[in-house]
């Protein structure tokens, strides 16, 4: 089973590029949802069995990241009627290239970390770092609030991959707690987006700078 781990992580990395290179918000939501499902099932491919607790975790993660949150976001999109990231801070191609540079550096950097031997040869750490980097890029380079939520989700996905390293050690409750936090966060953001759009008739984050005084 473990030999499937790396190809799946590579797929997750490819989805990162997809999220960076596409302008249609619906497509980005789908990409992030797909990554959520992919990461959700990853624990099944780890060394050793995972038990009933693990299966519960997989089911919750897949349900929440793959279906719950995306549905919420799509609902928010319909509500505020935006479909494209029109005017990103830097172009899609440049963000793709930045993402690629970050991924390359993550792979190089991960080799220098003192990891446990069973993790040193997998892509877990580089994939995690690269996904966090992609999330940061989305957060900083996109103007639409909903894209920022998606960036936040990618960031969380990166942290989740890192969590795979310590799956055996983490208590179940912590995992579920994190997921719950995430859900609440997205929920609150959804409400905020709704209000921003009603207040300013735009969901561009730039408009928030009017509040700085």
């Amino acid at each position, binding site marked *: 089973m473990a030999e499937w781990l*790396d*190809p799946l992580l*590579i797929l997750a*990395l*490819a989805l990162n*590029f997809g999220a960076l*290179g596409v*302008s249609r918000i619906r497509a980005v939501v789908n990409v992030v949802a797909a990554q959520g499902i992919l990461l959700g099932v990853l624990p099944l491919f780890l060394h050793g069995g995972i038990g009933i607790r693990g299966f519960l975790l997989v089911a919750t993660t897949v349900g929440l990241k793959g279906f719950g949150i995306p549905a919420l976001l799509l609902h928010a999109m319909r509500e505020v009627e935006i479909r494209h990231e029109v005017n990103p801070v830097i172009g*899609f*191609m440049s963000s*793709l*290239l930045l993402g*690629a540079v970050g*991924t*390359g550096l993550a*792979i190089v950097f991960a*080799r220098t970390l003192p990891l446990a031997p069973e993790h040193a*040869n997998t892509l877990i750490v580089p994939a995690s770092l690269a996904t966090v980097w992609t999330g940061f890029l989305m957060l900083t380079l996109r103007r639409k609030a909903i894209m920022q939520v998606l960036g936040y989700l990618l960031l969380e996905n990166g942290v989740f991959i890192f969590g795979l390293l310590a799956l055996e050690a983490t208590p179940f409750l912590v995992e579920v707690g994190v997921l719950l936090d995430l859900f609440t966060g997205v929920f609150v953001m959804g409400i905020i987006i709704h209000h921003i759009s009603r207040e300013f008739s735009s969901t561009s984050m730039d408009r928030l700078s009017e509040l700085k005084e």
Partner: protein
Amino acid sequence: MHAIVHNLIHIAVVLIAPPLLVGVINKVKAFFAGRTGPPLLQPYYDIIKLFQKGSVISETTTWVFLAGPPIALSTAILVSLLIPAAGSAAPISFEGDLILAAYLLGLGRFFTALAAMDTGSSFEGMGASREVTFACLAEPAFFLGLATTAKLTGSLSLSGMFGPELASHWSSAGASLALVFVGWFIVALAENSRIPFDDPNTHLELTMIHEVMVLDHGGPALGMILYGASIKLFVFAALLVRLATPIATRLPIVDWLIFGVGILGVAALIGVIESATARLRLSHIPVLLVAACLLCGFGLILLAR
């Protein structure tokens, strides 16, 4: 003796089979659209008919206009002799032939674009401009893919890089090779002006890249262009097939069968993609090509791990 027979078969296949690929693609597209579609051999009929027709040549043109099609065709033919087909090596094979192949295609592109510019038509100018622009992004993807297979097999000739040596690496470095396959598939679609880069089926002026470049060519010249383009498609399909199934059994017939099925499979895949997707907006094409570069580069980086 065996080698001579193999080479003769190779030459015959690369000279005869290519238009069939176009036929298969059109048939698949017709199937998805619920039509009967043109006969499978229609591309052959077209080319033969074109060779028998007369042509009209623009008054603004010079010899460069006439030089375009023959150079494009002859470079395509030479490249098709450099790539390995089934099992054994290609008829022409030496260390570094991969670079010759890439640059021969570049030569063909150079003269096709010049022939288009020779007419002085803005439409053809646009097509030529786009063709050379997208080539700049497709080329690094192609070379990064080549570097990946060269790194795996330690060989610098196409026959070695896509020979049986590669098969053993599918288990150890499958992820890299899969990434290169996807990247190259995108490159193949771009280089052959297929959907989502360009739609070869729309009315001539409305296509964006390749078809619009050859707007003023007619008769035998157009026949040469169509034939050359189908050989180029065959070349890319063959590379993809060899990348996916770099195996050599003891039986040449089995090898050729695998190769043939693979080629038809690639053609069918292109047909499915053309039926299922729409043409990309022009401004999005570079993003997809950069993504292809990243896929191939990423496949290479994974090897360095």
